[in-house]
């Protein structure tokens, strides 16, 4: 395992890694997210659950300013990562996204070789001084994503040729390669079969040692399996947030109870 220097930095933080206060998101005239306050712990997995269209993915995309790429989208309120306001005009969203990586719902490897898929981010950010260093980054990223054994002999083949589960782990490896501190995952297993899902979940659990992970999921079982804290969103409102155990066994809000017992959603 290649220990990254930023881990020591993160370890010093006793406070929450991400802190959102009174976040509002508007799509044109639609008020998609209302008054969300949440604290996300470092080096743990936090899951966002809720029915479709409740705003959990939208909120997730606020955390690395991916919503900036949508013209009509407007974000208000403050989101602090390491006590720094990420919507401050001084913050470069492009730099931010190197620090807050993202894995998407559908595996989206670039139409390049497996090697180039991983090397893409490090190349852009100049993380490798030479070819040897780049090889090292690619190898360690694939190892940490648990994909190395499966692809080590075919690094020059296109990433699109892998199976769905492998592609998703490739995308996770790609995100790890740029040394992020936070990894956002937007329903990373919804396009995968159960076996591939189990592998990705196992990987998420391992990555918790080094990264702060926020995962949006439709599967309550998945949230229960992988996350330490769970937040329940409903109609753009953060209804309830707490330790996963409590949310699933002893929810305080009636809506949460209805949702987790399958009465709606």
């Amino acid at each position, binding site marked *: 395992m290649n220990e990254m220097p930023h881990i020591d930095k993160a370890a010093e933080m006793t406070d929450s890694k991400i802190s959102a206060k009174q976040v509002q998101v508007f799509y044109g005239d639609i008020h998609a997210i209302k008054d969300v306050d949440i604290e996300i712990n470092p080096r743990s997995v936090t899951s966002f659950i809720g029915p479709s269209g409740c705003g959990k993915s939208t909120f997730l995309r606020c955390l690395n300013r991916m919503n900036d790429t949508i013209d009509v989208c407007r974000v208000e309120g403050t989101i602090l990562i390491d006590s720094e306001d990420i919507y401050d005009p001084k913050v470069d969203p492009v730099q931010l996204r190197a620090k807050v990586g993202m894995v998407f719902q559908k595996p989206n490897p*670039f139409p390049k070789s497996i090697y180039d898929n991983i090397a893409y981010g490090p190349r*852009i950010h100049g993380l490798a001084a030479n070819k040897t260093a780049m090889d090292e980054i690619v190898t360690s990223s694939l190892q940490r994503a648990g994909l190395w054994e499966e692809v080590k002999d075919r690094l020059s083949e296109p990433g699109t040729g892998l199976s769905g589960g492998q592609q998703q782990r490739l995308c996770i490896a*790609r995100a790890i390669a*740029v040394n992020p501190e936070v990894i956002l995952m937007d329903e990373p297993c919804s396009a995968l079969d159960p076996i591939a899902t189990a592998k990705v979940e196992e990987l998420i659990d391992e990555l918790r040692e080094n990264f702060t992970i926020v995962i949006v999921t439709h599967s309550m079982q998945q949230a229960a399996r992988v996350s330490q804290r769970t937040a329940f969103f409903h109609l753009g409102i953060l209804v309830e947030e707490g330790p996963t155990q409590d949310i699933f066994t002893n929810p305080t809000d009636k809506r949460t109870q209805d949702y987790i017992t399958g009465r709606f959603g």
Partner: protein
Amino acid sequence: MPLFWLVLIVLAIASAGYVLGRSRALASAGGDRSILHSLPSYYGANAALKSAVPAFLLMIAWLLAQPFFIDNQISGMIPEATIDESSSLGLVMAEVRRTAEGLDNAVAEGSMSEEFARNARADIVDITQRLKDAGQIVTSDITQPVMRAAQRYRVLSAAGGFYMTLVVLATAVAGALWGIREATAGFRARNVVEQGVLAILVAAASIAILTTIGIVLSLVFNTAEFFGLYPAFDFFTGLTWAPSFSGRGGSSELGIIPLLWGTFYISIVALAVAVPIGLFAAIYLAEYAGPKIRAIAKPLLEVLAGIPTIVYGLFALLTVGPLLVSVFGDDGLGVMQAGTAVMTAGLVMGIMLIPFVSSLSDDIINAVPQAMRDGSYGLGATKSETVKQVILPAALPGIVGAILLAASRAIGETMIVVLGAGAAARLSLNPFEAMTTVTAKIVSQLTGDADFASPEALVAFALGMTLFVVTLGLNIVALYIVRKYREQYD
């Protein structure tokens, strides 16, 4: 009966078939629609289709066949001896038709009675004079055989028209009756109409394909005729293009190489202009421009594609040529002699191709899934990094296809090169010299008094065939690449 009326009557019969078929079907169900297999309108449509489609098909076939039949009958009436050395049977037949038409018009105007026009023993001089008086175009003096043939022509076409009317109307009525008879509750009119619609669509598609085949065949036959008069080897390898219109073949040198060179040189200049500008415009429109700018800029850019190429030609001749001369001409760098040059035509053709490249590339870039962009932005890439390293590589096969399509357009372009490139067939590397292209030479070989039996005129078909093969090859490669690319994301 004029054709127009016949068409109207057939349509009227079909409409009547529709109404009757519909009402008969309803009546057979006792007015209860739910008993019918299909909606009532399908029974009507069945009758209308059965009446109109065969009738019109028959009419078209008859109209196509009748002239051949009549020509066959008439041409026997013209003695070999009366055909001048300089003219041909075709020319005499044209005169026959003209005379017949003149007679028709004269009768219609009332300046000549029907009996008089039909009278075989009528005085020719008198008839010619009367036709001229009636304002009809009669070229030379009508000879006795031509007059006879013209009269026979009139009789045959009148009879043909009459029988055609009868047969077409009978078909329409029979079809309508058949359709009406079928209109009973259990009849699957909906399925039959579906078949009919399919047949019409297939027919439309076949007409397009058959026309293409016809064009190719006409090219092939004329090309073969040319190669009978001029050796194919000399044509494809000759380095000189020097047609001579005074002599008969022997003194002409018809080598295609200088023309192909001019074509490719101008096309390369054009692509060198169009590809970067078009591609950058497409990237701007697809990736950077907001929806408002895009809504205005894209149609504006595509207006360029709507400008007729002759206007581009004028632009080349009157604006770009003189402009280039003022910079590169004797007053400037001294490398350009006149306004018409490879550079002039190439630049203007490049401008013409910009919307071609940009519009296709824009579509292709937009077809790259948003997930690719998200993936790249999510790793902290900027827009231009994403475009350069993810979107363009993903879209590259499609863009190459677009460029090849633009290239085949450039190779086939005529008006701009006729006006902008000059007329000298020349093998040269200097882009400021006048050169000419295959298309421009096709124009110059066929305009004017060329004799269509001489190699100087027939060479145009060989040139056209060569051009056709080249552009077809480019198009096939382009379509293959575009299709292969499309499969990547579906």
